[in-house]
């Protein structure tokens, strides 16, 4: 063992000098905390899992659910989070979400392109028979 491996080694030897000791403090509000906490309003759909009694006052509103993946997420949040099906359906919804976005991205050019190719094919068949 090196005598002094780093500067001030063992400076936190005394457990009481460590911020996380004891693990649970005597209850008191943290500096800057404000009560009551006003309830956030949201214009978008936010899910709460079934095992939670009430909605928290603050939450994220990023990427609201949509499409088939959104329906799957709605089903998943209908189960409390101690059930594996809650998580497995969410993982499935994530994969569906990716495919929905891929289709939405390629749709604007893929649909016309397929249409043009089909029409060209039909025209070619008709012309070659004539």
């Amino acid at each position: 063992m090196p005598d002094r491996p780093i500067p001030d080694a063992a400076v936190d030897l005394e457990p009481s000098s460590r911020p996380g000791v004891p693990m649970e403090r005597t209850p008191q509000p943290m500096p800057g905390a404000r009560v009551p906490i006003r309830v956030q309003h949201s214009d978008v759909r936010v899910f709460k899992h079934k095992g939670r009694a009430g909605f928290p006052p603050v939450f994220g509103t990023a990427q609201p659910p949509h499409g088939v993946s959104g329906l799957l997420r709605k089903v998943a949040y209908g189960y409390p989070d101690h059930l594996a099906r809650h998580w497995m359906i969410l993982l499935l919804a994530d994969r569906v979400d990716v495919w929905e976005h891929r289709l939405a991205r390629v749709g604007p050019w893929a649909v016309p392109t397929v249409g043009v190719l089909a029409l060209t094919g039909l025209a070619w068949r008709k012309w070659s028979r004539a």
Partner: protein
Amino acid sequence: MRALTYQGPFKVRVENKPDPRLEHPQDVILKVTRTAICGSDLHLLHGLVPDTRVGHTFGHEFTGVVEELGSEVSQLHKGDRVVVPFNISCGTCFYCQRGLTASCENSNPSSDVACGVYGYSHTTGGYDGGQAEYVRVPFADVGPLKIPDGMEDEEALFLGDILPTGYMGAEMGEIKGGETVVVFGAGPVGLFAMRSAWLMGAGRVIAVDCVQYRLDFAERYAKVETVNFREVDDIVLYLKELFEGRGPDVCIDAVGMEAEGSLGQRVLGLGLKLEAGAPTVLTWCIDVVRKGGNVSIVGVYGPPWNLMPIGTAMNKGLTLRMNQCNVRRYMPHLLQHIREGRIDAKGIITHRFPLEEAPKAYHLFAQKQDGCVKCVLTPGHA
């Protein structure tokens, strides 16, 4: 604004998205000045965290300047430079009042497994993260810490996650002086756990990893002995033998769910998704540590379950301690350690990229190329 967005497993890109807005009177909007890629962001990138939606912006380690304030914010002012804990904590609930800010019950409707976290899927509340030009910060009077004048953002950046997490990892090992400590994982959290173990009076610290350049880095940065587990026949037997056949007093898991070292666990957890990742390191910790010893877990594991030897832990009489880090309570203490030169937090940064090159940075970090230990991103305006 420009922001990194998730596009599906193994794919992120930087694109335009709407600026965040104040959604609650206790919110502020931060103009991000520095943001880091965390090892746990790779779990999101690899599609392992349920309810990670396309378009989500990652990033839970960031510093910024206060740009806009909610009507109830009184401790911060426009222009203040702050570093933000990754936990979104109200400061008043049952858990926050006891110092357990990682368990805050007022910031996450989606799950009881964690509180709200920036940029870490909808499982932790659906908040966009800081790998962007701007970010919404709720409960702004409670979480953010003002960066002292004269201190660079990069010196304070890691107070938001990996430095407190590493410190807490060592703290949960309950080191009383002279103990032998094995830290699995020589990534950023592991490095800070090693330094912290010395600060708490450990007698011997050993780093275990399979990436040689990271072990070399650990030797230089944390002054520890190292073992590459790919170069020994059986890492459990090797480490036990190293400590008189009994094993070390403390093992710290600073790896989590994407561990190398067991093909079976990787197939089950990462390939077939039949468990939440590969708990190989956790298994090693339980097998290696001496009877009556402590195992501290700060590597991230997800729901719903993992295959790990709980019977061995029970029969050996181990103490298992684990938690997402209650970051806010550690920040002042560790800020002092940085200022007094005991921890060179900035010293682990090996790569810096503009935000626009974030996908390249993710690739480099995930593939452990070019000696990468820690990547920091800088938004265009910073």
